């Protein structure tokens, strides 16, 4: 039933590859939209830059703008050393952004509305941070948890707080994106559902249905903002965490 606000998050199996070790691997609607996101991103960016023109075409300027935007974010947050990780961060940003925006199409599935996906992305970021941190600084990377200039008596507590804060990063990073996408789509669906419900309730209801309809319009615009903003927040926080790995002495 279209009126169920949760139904849009349902994973629908298209065909199964079978079970491996008790886990079922299948082609699902989620997979389709992940593939679609990759196709849209690479198709657009490759197509837009095919001309490699000195004076960019419209599409090429969009591609260049996206590139410069993330490149500037990475450079200003992590310094020039961070530019080594630019392809990863750019991929992350575009993947999250495109999945968020694809989810704005009616009947389209929102890949980022599933915690397992956002958590996997967050864990990929944290793994990268840990690997880079230990690879560049070795054990001294742990100094990240021991801030300078803190009085000796409270240093253990501060260190404990720093460790907890570090460990909660993947959770907050993934929950923020997941929660925003999930809640936004539910609210949108609920208000859109009101329009149908009230329309079915006769003339008075149909007139009153204008209110939730207006709300749906406003929320749709708001959701587009959220889609872009959350992708950017995810990217900026990734840069901030990466900066910790590159320069742990703060």
């Amino acid at each position, binding site marked *: 039933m279209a009126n169920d606000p*949760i139904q849009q998050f349902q994973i629908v199996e298209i065909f199964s590859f079978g079970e491996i070790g008790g886990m079922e691997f299948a082609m699902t609607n989620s997979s389709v939209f992940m593939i679609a996101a*990759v196709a849209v991103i*690479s198709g657009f960016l490759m197509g837009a830059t095919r001309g490699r023109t000195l004076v960019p075409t419209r599409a090429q300027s969009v591609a260049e703008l996206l590139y410069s935007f993330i490149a500037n974010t990475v450079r200003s947050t992590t310094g020039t050393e961070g530019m080594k990780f630019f392809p990863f961060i750019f991929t992350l940003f575009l993947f999250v952004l495109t999945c968020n925006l694809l989810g704005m199409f009616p009947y389209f599935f929102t890949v980022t509305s599933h915690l397992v996906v956002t958590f996997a992305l967050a864990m990929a970021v944290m793994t990268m941070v840990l690997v880079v941190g230990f690879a560049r600084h070795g054990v001294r990377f742990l100094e990240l948890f021991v801030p300078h200039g803190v009085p000796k008596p409270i240093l253990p507590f501060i260190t404990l707080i720093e460790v907890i804060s570090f460990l909660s990063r993947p959770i907050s990073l993934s929950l923020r994106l997941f929660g925003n996408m999930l809640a936004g789509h539910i609210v949108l669906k609920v208000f859109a559902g009101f329009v149908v419900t009230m329309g079915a309730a006769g003339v008075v209801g149909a007139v009153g249905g204008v209110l939730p309809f207006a709300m749906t319009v406003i929320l749709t615009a708001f959701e587009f903002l959220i889609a872009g903003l959350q992708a950017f927040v995810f990217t900026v926080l990734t840069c901030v965490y990466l900066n910790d790995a590159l320069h742990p002495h703060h």
Partner: protein
Amino acid sequence: MAETTQTAGEAAQAAAESGSAFPPFDASTFPSQLLWLAITFGLLYYLMSRFIAPRIGGIIEDRRDRVANDLAEAERLKTETDEAIAAYEQALAEAKAKAHGIAQDTRDKINADLEAKRAEVDAELAEKTQAAEARIDEVRAAAMAEVGTIAGDAAEAVVTKIIGSAKRADIDKAVSTALDGR
């Protein structure tokens, strides 16, 4: 109210079908999602790091280089132009000075020439004047010399008319005295 219960009922039904109340927490879908996320994200990362990012970065860098080159070229051309202008101005100043010199020389030469000619004419005139004056003096002297004789002749004629005879020597003496006394 009826709608709500129906909705809730169908949600429960959908949940029952998938084996969990809430799709995002349905662990049975996790392996597929993680697998496809790894595949698609990995593929996108590969495309990004191998093709897309280098290409866009290259385009932007090419443009920056081109702009920098063009600016440098413009700077070079500007310097060249400035040099050419300076050289031109110098040549112009030199030419002006030269022209001034030539004009001055010509003027000096003409002046000298004029001066020489004028001196020549002056000398000639002075010479002529001198000759004329000499001639005048000569004539006057001659005239003055005649004056006594003429006066004597006139006096002799007058005296002869009055007294019938005259002594030429006395008359000349008287005339000479009168002339001297004047």
